[in-house]
């Protein structure tokens, strides 16, 4: 189908659907007047029941932990797909085709990137450990920690990025993070309570080591997200790093 015909059909049917959506949106509650009971009940109850002051993370890793398990496995499968599509075996490397991998930035820029790297890593661990108290948790911490080697890649050459991310340990960490979540749920089953119940001692509200399995699950998710982003980045950069040639 030619492009102009496609776009005209889209405008006709899309316009009809847009009008139907607008007439349906008139029955939604007006903006700013949330009425549903579920959110209010959880916000009132979760500080006492789970000793976690961050209600959003308590929902993510305890009340609706099953949904987060599914999302985490979406992430795992997507990275699996990226690695399967972009990995290739080591073939011959033509000498004249290697990419020019010199360090291009000046010493000042690289020297001032190192404190930024340190602050990023410390901040990532802080966000990951305090998920149950303040905004944060495993997903955010994973992305922050994964941006540190990318900072290395931007400031130095691809060789330093490869030295950090080309280990088999990254794959083990990712699998351990994804599997650890399921193992924590199964451990609850082994103790006789339902899957993914919070079975560890809950501690004092406001402490770092509080709220039972929420902190543990958050740590597992953080490891998995970090390793997932680094593996995906390495798969994209792999051909540029090693200068491998595709099979003809």
């Amino acid at each position, binding site marked *: 189908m030619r492009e102009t015909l496609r776009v005209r059909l889209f405008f006709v049917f899309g316009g009809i659907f847009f009008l139907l959506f607008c007439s349906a949106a008139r029955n939604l509650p007006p903006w700013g007047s949330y009425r549903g009971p579920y959110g209010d009940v959880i916000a009132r109850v979760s500080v006492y029941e789970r000793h976690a002051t961050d209600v959003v993370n308590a929902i993510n890793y305890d009340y609706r932990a099953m949904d987060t398990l599914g999302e985490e496995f979406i992430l795992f499968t997507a990275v699996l797909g990226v690695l399967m599509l972009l990995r290739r075996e080591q073939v011959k490397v033509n000498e004249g085709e290697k990419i020019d991998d010199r360090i291009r930035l000046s010493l000042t820029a690289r020297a001032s990137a190192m404190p930024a790297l340190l602050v990023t890593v410390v901040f990532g661990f802080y966000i990951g450990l305090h998920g149950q108290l303040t905004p944060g948790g495993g997903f955010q911490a994973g992305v922050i920690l*994964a941006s540190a080697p990318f900072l290395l890649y931007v400031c130095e050459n691809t060789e330093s990025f490869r030295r950090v991310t080309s280990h088999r340990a990254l794959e083990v960490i990712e699998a351990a993070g994804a599997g650890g979540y399921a193992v924590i749920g199964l451990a609850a089953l082994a103790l006789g309570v339902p899957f993914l119940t919070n079975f560890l001692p809950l501690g004092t509200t406001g402490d770092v080591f509080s709220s039972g399995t929420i902190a543990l699950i958050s740590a597992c998710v953080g490891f998995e997200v970090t390793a997932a982003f680094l593996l995906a980045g390495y798969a994209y950069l792999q051909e*540029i790093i090693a200068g491998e040639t595709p099979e003809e």
Partner: protein
Amino acid sequence: MIWVGAGLLILVAVTGFGVVRTRDVTGQVIAISFYGVLMSLVFFFFQAPDVALSQITVGAVALPLMIMLAISRMKYRTVRMRKRERDA
């Protein structure tokens, strides 16, 4: 305060349209990075700090980085194919 939120939402609508209408792919990466920062401001207005933290790190850093890596990988392969054709 509610008018600030309304203004931010209108800005998001305009920026989204601008991202779609940018035809050059490299320019579109910069546009979607700006869109990500704007979305995180909207999430702050909606009193959602967790989601805003996620959106800042992902939408302004990780997503444009992935797209740029994919684009540069395609360009690197095209350059190398052409060099090989020229030498052959």
